[in-house]
């Protein structure tokens, strides 16, 4: 499913001079981002720094105004978003991305069933999808949701929905995951669970995530890129970034205090 080309290159995802303008407003301004293979890489920055826009550019949900994006050494700047997913880079969304009125099992099966090549077969019985149930259950077990399989997704608590989203993403066996604020709006318990989950699924994978929770960033991320006003402000590991005076100034106030306080 995933193309394992140029695996020797140290960087799985690279952008050069990435720019996105919306009618004169520059949301992303010349971002050079390099994500090292196998890393959990965090993209942080104050509100409006262009993190989500950056994500949408990387996954081709938005076309960039200028600049290039290379995934596994291949220029993907002009690819369609569904093609990116098939190449092995799958994203999540800021708002929980489940299919609310399908069951938990069906949610995962949606990701699996494309591989059967019958997704256009309107004359086939739905029972032909049952052959995927075993695989789907295994994926659900991996995120601890096997007992929820028959539940309609909308009924699940928020934290579990994020877990379901991860299971669905893993069904594609992607080389790279892009997670947009995976712990946003969660209580402590859920944050810990999702953090563990991300750590677990990061084996043999690269993860790029937008994250506000500094506990998560400091806890599991290997590298951090700080964005401010659409441009890269700082880059490095947690210790060097959190000690950087420019970063502290950009955050000004609570988040900066938190950043410093939690710097081990």
């Amino acid at each position: 499913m995933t193309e394992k080309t140029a695996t020797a290159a140290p960087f799985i995802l690279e952008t050069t001079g990435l720019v996105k303008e919306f009618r004169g407003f520059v949301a992303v301004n010349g971002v050079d981002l390099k994500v090292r293979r196998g890393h959990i890489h965090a993209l942080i920055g104050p509100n409006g720094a262009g993190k989500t826009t950056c994500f949408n550019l990387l996954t081709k949900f938005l076309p960039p105004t200028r600049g290039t994006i290379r995934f596994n050494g291949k220029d993907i700047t002009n690819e369609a978003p569904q093609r990116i997913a098939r190449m092995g880079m799958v994203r999540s969304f800021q708002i929980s991305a489940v299919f609310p009125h399908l069951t938990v099992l069906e949610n995962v099966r949606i990701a699996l069933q494309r591989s059967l090549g019958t997704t256009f077969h309107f004359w086939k019985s739905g029972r032909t999808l049952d052959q995927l149930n075993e695989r789907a259950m295994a994926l659900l077990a991996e995120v601890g949701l096997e007992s929820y399989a028959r539940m309609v997704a909308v009924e699940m608590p928020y934290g579990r929905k994020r877990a379901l989203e991860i299971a669905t993403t893993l069904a594609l066996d992607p080389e790279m995951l892009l997670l947009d604020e995976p712990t946003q709006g969660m209580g402590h318990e859920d944050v810990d669970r999702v953090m563990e989950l991300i750590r677990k699924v990061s084996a043999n994978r690269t993860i790029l995530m937008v994250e506000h929770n500094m506990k998560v960033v400091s806890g599991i991320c290997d590298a951090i890129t700080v964005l401010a006003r659409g441009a890269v402000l700082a880059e490095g590991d947690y210790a060097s970034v959190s000690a950087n005076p420019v970063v502290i100034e950009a955050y000004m106030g609570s988040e900066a205090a938190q950043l410093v306080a939690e710097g081990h």
Partner: protein
Amino acid sequence: MNTKVSIAYLAGLALLVAAPTVIYPVLVMKVLCFALFACAFNLLLGYTGLLSFGHAIFLGTSAYVAGYVIKVLEFGPLAGIAVGTVAAGALGWVIGSLAIRRQGIYFAMITLALAQLMYFIYVQAPFTGGEDGLQGIARGSMFGIDLTNDLALYYVVVGFFAAAFWLIQRTIHSPFGQTLKAIRENEQRTISLGYDVDRYKLLAFVLSAAIAGLAGALKALLFGFATLGDIHWHTSGEVVLMTLLGGMGTVFGPVVGATVIVTLQTELSDKVGSLVSVIMGCIFVFCVLVFRRGIVGEGVALYKRMIGEKVH
């Protein structure tokens, strides 16, 4: 199809077979044509989340094409129905590929605009008979059955209806239908899982247009004419009303909605005249205000609440 739906399906079929003994078959056939039209529309609105506001153009195009094939080219009714259905599907492909480039209200507006464009072409085109319509489409005979007999035609219409209804159910529960539901539920997420959603939407649109076309061809055969009324935007609006009143996204909702609307229109038209539109408007307002899930939808929700299931 689950057991409950299968039982309801068989019961409905039995009712249809027995119906002409108590009800005037032409009325039931009219109801069936519109029910099929609404079911086709529901495949798009209820199961794919696409609101087409020009669906009458598929009903009408097929009615004209079927009428032309039968009356002018003098092929039999079966060829007329087949060619009409294919023509509606082909038009669906053209309109669909243009409209699915946009979402939501823009999608609805594009379908309406293209349908209106076709409407004015049909008003001018010689083969439609313009304001007079295409009159005198002979029923002829099919499989050696003389269709001029209302009862004979009735069973042919029931046969077509049952087959098309089954196909729609099959589609909804197929791997393709599952993909459509995913698109309805969360289009962005479906794209991010590697689906080329436009191609699925287009196939759904073509299927829906073709089945609407089948309904139109049957209707032309039933009444012996195809008119501008079939392609007027009123008809496009009516099918929305039928689907919402019966319950969008439910299996039998469109059938119930079409039955109520067609029966009311037929019963009331000679009693209250043009007030029918006012009554239809009131029903629509009432439905939107207090009956969101439609007749079948509310019924199912009530049943689920009684057996203690959660309702969304």
